[in-house]
């Protein structure tokens, strides 16, 4: 019987699905709220594999590092988590591996942001926290006045990470984009997220419906997954007139609202992946 450690900092509907599925598949599942733990050398664990499902990105990454140091495989790995948690690092890796992604830059001052935007072909651009999720603190910047205001606010009101301005060329989505659920490089299903707002995250009100996966989507997602190290990923893709482009990659994906529209047991696929990893 495969012994799985499921790490969390809160149990959402996604974790409930994983727990129920693991029990149905007769896995020996131990659920650990890492807020009730301390991590230090010398402690022993009997798991064959760990799945990290912490909603706290910071805490989750430390947990991944700890269990990897003990030789226990963790899904997702420290490399995957480190790359995917940071949008600039993700973009660099995608670009290095020739995966289509919107033009991007990092700048630390207004003047350099202006230079970067000119380099990228001009406005509009999107300013995003390099470390952030759920469509929060995104700003579509249409002109220099807005750029000045937003960057000043980020610099004065934000913590130091907000002083690193991750800029991305704005890509017109025409009201929808795609989230592909990718396990070990393979797209198991995908949803289209529709919204009248340019931010289509379901956390911001975007509506999910099944999206028929085609060969080109499979191909770009495989390349993107390989670029960041594989594992279980939610890859956000925009369809443009010149093909698919990868917007960003999520390494602790939420999927509970996608099982019904797609008809795919994403939780089942994840647990099967954990079992396969444990047996390697």
């Amino acid at each position, binding site marked *: 019987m495969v012994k799985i450690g499921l790490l969390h900092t809160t149990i959402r509907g996604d974790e409930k699905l994983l727990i129920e599925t693991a029990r149905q598949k007769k896995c020996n599942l131990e659920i650990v709220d890492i807020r009730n733990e301390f991590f230090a050398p010398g402690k022993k664990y009997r798991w064959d594999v760990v799945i990290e499902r912490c909603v706290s990105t910071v805490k989750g990454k430390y947990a991944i590092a700890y269990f990897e140091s003990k030789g226990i495989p963790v899904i997702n790995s420290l490399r995957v988590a480190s790359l995917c948690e940071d949008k600039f690092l993700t973009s660099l890796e995608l670009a290095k591996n020739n995966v289509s992604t919107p033009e991007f830059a990092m700048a630390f001052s207004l003047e350099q942001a202006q230079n970067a935007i000119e380099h990228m072909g001009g406005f509009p651009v999107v300013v995003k926290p390099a470390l952030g999720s*759920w469509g929060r603190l995104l700003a579509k910047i249409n002109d220099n006045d807005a750029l000045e205001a937003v960057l000043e606010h980020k610099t004065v009101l934000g913590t130091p990470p907000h002083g690193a301005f991750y800029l991305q060329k704005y890509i017109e989505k025409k009201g929808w984009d795609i989230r592909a659920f990718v396990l070990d490089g393979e797209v198991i299903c995908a949803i289209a997220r529709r919204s009248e707002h340019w931010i289509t995250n379901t956390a911001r009100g975007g509506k999910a419906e099944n999206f028929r996966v085609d060969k080109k989507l499979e191909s770009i997602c495989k390349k993107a997954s390989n670029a960041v190290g594989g594992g279980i990923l939610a890859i956000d893709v925009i369809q443009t007139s010149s093909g698919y482009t990868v917007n960003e990659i999520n390494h602790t994906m939420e999927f509970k609202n996608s099982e019904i529209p797609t008809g795919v047991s994403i939780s089942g696929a994840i647990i099967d992946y954990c079992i396969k990893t444990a047996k390697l």
Partner: protein
Amino acid sequence: MTSQCPVCDATVTLSDSAEVSEIIACTDCSTQLVVADKKGTDVTLEEAPAVEEDWGE
């Protein structure tokens, strides 16, 4: 299983498989609640922690 919402005192129904640290919503006041403790069918609910800056996918 049932418990009381700590905010509005409504009776909140939970499934028997509710886990400690699980997030649920009060159906009366919509407050996000967390299962703080569970001993058999005796469940304690608290207000769920506020979303923090590093929360997400």
